[in-house]
């Protein structure tokens, strides 16, 4: 039972355009959501997060949107840069669970 799903294994965008990465979850107990970025041969690094009391969180070029009724979140990267090419993992957790549940990642390629 995969509680966090990233249905697009890959995404390719042109430099300067918007990248939109999507994530769906099934567990309504989740109340905190995170995005991690992973380069080859490195561990994931934290990118941005959002609490379930918000529907949007912005940090520079990165914005995460949360739609609780649809159990859906998305990561927008504007403008996309070649250095953004990486695997992006969505993760979800709920208070006191002590762990995050990860999606299986979306590989983003930003073409110059």
């Amino acid at each position: 039972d995969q509680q966090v799903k990233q249905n697009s294994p890959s995404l390719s965008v042109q430099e300067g355009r918007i990248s939109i990465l999507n994530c769906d979850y099934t567990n309504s107990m989740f109340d905190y959501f995170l995005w991690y970025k992973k380069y080859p041969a490195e561990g994931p690094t934290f990118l941005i997060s959002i609490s379930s009391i918000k529907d949007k969180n912005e940090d520079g070029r990165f914005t995460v949107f949360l739609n609780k009724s649809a159990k859906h979140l998305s990561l927008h990267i504007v403008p996309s840069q070649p250095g953004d090419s990486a695997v992006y993992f969505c993760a979800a957790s709920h208070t006191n669970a002590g762990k995050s549940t990860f999606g299986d990642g979306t590989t983003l390629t930003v073409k110059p």
Partner: protein
Amino acid sequence: DTAVSQTPKYLVTQMGNDKSIKCEQNLGHDTMYWYKQDSKKFLKIMFSYNNKELIINETVPNRFSPKSPDKAHLNLHINSLELGDSAVYFCASKSVESTDTQYFGPGTRLTVL
């Protein structure tokens, strides 16, 4: 100044062998994790320790035994290695005060022949 380090980075071994992967964090975090990333790229939690105590064990075969000598270290020992154990293993840590932001090590690629 590596925050979360793992050794070795690569490990190639024969079926049936016993091997260990070490993890150390210098962030002063209370909680540490082991994850397995298999060929499908899915990051699956295996264990979580808080202040040297096991708090999460996600139905991992008992051939896998984590050991936490102190809260800065969480090692993973694997007995009787099988082909299906081939994967990348990531260690991670977080502060108990943090909502859930984890800091990951660079991963250990284990290949069982």
